[in-house]
């Protein structure tokens, strides 16, 4: 006999369903008067936030290239210096004027999502090499049984992207562009493809 390993199993995921907005963004769904604001809504920056202002915009497409109109997207990112506003961030203190997390529904008519944020700094990989600036995405919706994780990197960071420990080890190079947000001015366009020839790379994190 050996000593037993007493672990619990993670609660199984279930789809967020068609009415995730009732619970997570009720004001957006038209139910006002209970929460003052929807958690994670609005701009992620204020006057004091350090860093370059950008807007991330995009659509999430299904296998027929129809945009999802009922998805909810959350992002999590480092501040301009590469620090996360989290107790588990032990390397230094993040910008107190940047929370780093936000939540947006896709527009009910078009499906487009948008985040007003700053461009994050570089964060070290586990072995100390620097990862290129990136934003972590989490996507849930009706028909998605377990939330999907991906990352958005930046098209204006070619050199950093070329040596990024995650991007550089992806075998199928043709898929790497699915992780690169296209920067034009202060707008970064990042479309997510759930299926098809350009299926976005999703991570098992």
């Amino acid at each position: 006999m050996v000593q037993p390993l007493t672990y619990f199993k993670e609660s199984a995921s279930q789809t967020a369903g068609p009415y995730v907005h009732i619970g997570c963004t009720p004001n957006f769904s038209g139910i006002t008067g209970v929460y003052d604001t929807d958690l994670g809504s609005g701009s992620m920056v204020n006057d004091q936030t350090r860093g370059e202002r950008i807007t991330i915009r995009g659509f999430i497409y299904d296998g027929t290239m129809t945009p999802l109109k009922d998805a909810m997207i959350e992002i999590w990112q480092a501040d301009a210096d590469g620090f996360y506003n989290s107790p588990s961030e032990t390397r230094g203190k993040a910008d107190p004027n940047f929370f780093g997390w936000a939540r947006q529904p896709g527009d009910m008519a078009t499906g487009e999502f948008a985040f007003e944020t700053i461009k994050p700094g570089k964060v070290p990989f586990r072995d100390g090499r620097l990862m290129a600036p990136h934003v972590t995405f989490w996507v849930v919706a009706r028909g998605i049984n377990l939330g999907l994780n991906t990352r958005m990197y930046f098209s204006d960071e070619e050199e950093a992207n070329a040596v990024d420990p995650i991007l550089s080890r992806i075998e199928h190079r043709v898929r790497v562009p699915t992780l690169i947000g296209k920067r034009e001015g202060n707008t970064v366009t990042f479309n997510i493809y759930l299926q098809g020839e350009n299926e976005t790379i999703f991570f098992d994190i």
Partner: protein
Amino acid sequence: MKNTPPETTPFFARDRDWHPPAFTPGYKTSVLRSPQRALISLEGTKSEITGPVFGHNILGEFDNDLIVNYAKPGEMALGERILVYGRVIDERGHGVPGALVEFWQANAGGRYRHKKETYLAPLDPNFGGFGRTITDENGGYAFKTIKPGPYPWPNGVNDWRPAHIHFSVFGHGFAQRLITQMYFEGDPMIWICPIVKTIPDENAIKGLIAALDMQNTIPHDMRAYKFDIVLRGRRSTFFENRKEGN
């Protein structure tokens, strides 16, 4: 709250055979919304093991009472009054303090307050159908609500959802992010639901069924259902790979 140092270790790998796969044709909407290529494995970097912290200042007085949080003054939502309570723990069995738990549900007749909802059951003017809370230092949480009704939904021609409450949970790391649903002990609709049946393992389904707990009922007021939520655990020790070894 206890002053314990934050953990900085990576999370246990997610058991993808325990969760529903992406492609589950019995749940039709998943067919065109399921990635078909293999996920790329990414063991926790800072970007995954960190996460935001939500303070109690975001909570309103009645955020954890769905019976009154949308009701007109002096009125209450209609339905079977219940207390839903439990703990948010991780796979090691450690309580997860400070976890944001959000929940939403249909009313007692099985109707959601949503503009895209078409079920003929009526809205309850005193029921919004959502709330939130933050776990205490042991990972405990509780809220009051009414038992939601089952309802038909467009999938098969005669598919019904069992009574359920949706849960969205934030742990301490973004990699722990989870959305799931709670079902009710003894409901025969659970086992014929196409969304429940996306979960391949019967024990995983049982882990989503809250037990009727008569010990924690509030006498002459409401019955209790106990629902524990398990988030991913994280390594208890941190020994990193050699820098030069990768």
